[in-house]
């Protein structure tokens, strides 16, 4: 199988310059273009949805209201008292990741959440914010977070390092979870699409008929990827809320 089609699974994540030569000069990549597209889409869709304020909402207004209420419930249920201050942040984060995941599913578009640089930046933002909120709210009392209340004092040498380790693994797991989900989905697509070409190259006419099987798998994967895209945005948002809850209420 030397000359046949090969699978270039990670090639689809390679960055290219966005906006031609001017973009190349300032390292403005196609991932940045997609970030702009998703940001503009969010603003335009919500502005259009909120414009008419009809008593009986149309489709756009109804979905904008549903999205808003979904994040409101998420915040108020998870963060608890004082959620209002963090609602705009969580709202922005959720919809930015959601639109980034979703537009990445379209052909010719680029999933910017498939880059660890992007997800790590978001996760570190959340991490630093929780520390700042915790310190601002509780002062040095914040560090009692690392010693769970009610635990026997004798266990402190064991518990405190574990708590500190869990605390610092938060941004790592938060960023890798999102990026790995998106990368795995896109790689699976690429692998099964590669199987189609390999079938056709290896078996001729029979192979072209047999290529329907990987195609069917890919069609099922589209549905699965839409689920993953929404779910990962939700998970990122709810974990942000959980961390903020810990910072505001200390366990």
């Amino acid at each position, binding site marked *: 199988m030397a000359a046949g089609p090969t699978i270039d699974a*990670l090639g689809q994540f390679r960055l290219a310059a966005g906006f031609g030569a001017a973009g190349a000069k300032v390292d403005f990549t196609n991932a940045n273009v997609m970030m702009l597209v998703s940001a503009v889409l969010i603003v335009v869709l919500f502005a259009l949805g909120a414009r008419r304020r009809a008593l009986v909402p149309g489709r756009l207004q109804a979905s904008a209201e549903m999205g808003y209420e979904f994040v409101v419930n998420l915040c108020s249920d998870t963060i608890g008292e004082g959620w209002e201050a963090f609602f705009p942040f969580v709202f922005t984060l959720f919809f930015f990741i959601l639109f980034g995941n979703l537009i990445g599913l379209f052909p010719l578009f680029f999933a910017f959440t498939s880059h660890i640089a992007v997800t790590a930046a978001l996760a570190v933002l959340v991490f630093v914010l929780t520390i700042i909120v915790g310190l601002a709210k509780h002062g040095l009392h914040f560090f009692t977070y690392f010693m769970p209340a009610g635990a026997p004092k004798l266990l402190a040498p064991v518990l405190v390092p574990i708590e500190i380790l869990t605390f610092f693994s938060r941004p790592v797991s938060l960023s*890798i979870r999102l990026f*790995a*989900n998106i990368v*795995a989905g896109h790689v699976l697509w690429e692998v099964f699409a590669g199987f189609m070409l390999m079938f056709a190259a290896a078996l001729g006419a029979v192979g072209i008929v047999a290529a329907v099987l990987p195609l069917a798998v890919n069609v099922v994967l589209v549905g699965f990827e839409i689920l993953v895209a929404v779910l990962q945005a*939700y*998970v990122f948002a709810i974990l942000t809320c959980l961390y903020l809850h810990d910072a505001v209420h200390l366990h």
Partner: protein
Amino acid sequence: MGTEAARAIGAGLAAIGVAGAGVGIGHIFAALVNSVARNPAARSQVFGLGILGFALTEAVALYALLISFLVLFG
């Protein structure tokens, strides 16, 4: 050919980790079905928790899968 074969074997070994996440996801949905069967009224609340648990567990499987992909294609 030696490195190519080692690459394939390594990728296969890395993918073994997915089995654990498979067990975990099975446990989550077993518990979800159990709790809904016991108390159908709690379905809407329990479902969200179940999906959250599923996403968190599935991510562990993806860590293993990602290493496998990196070994294979990276």
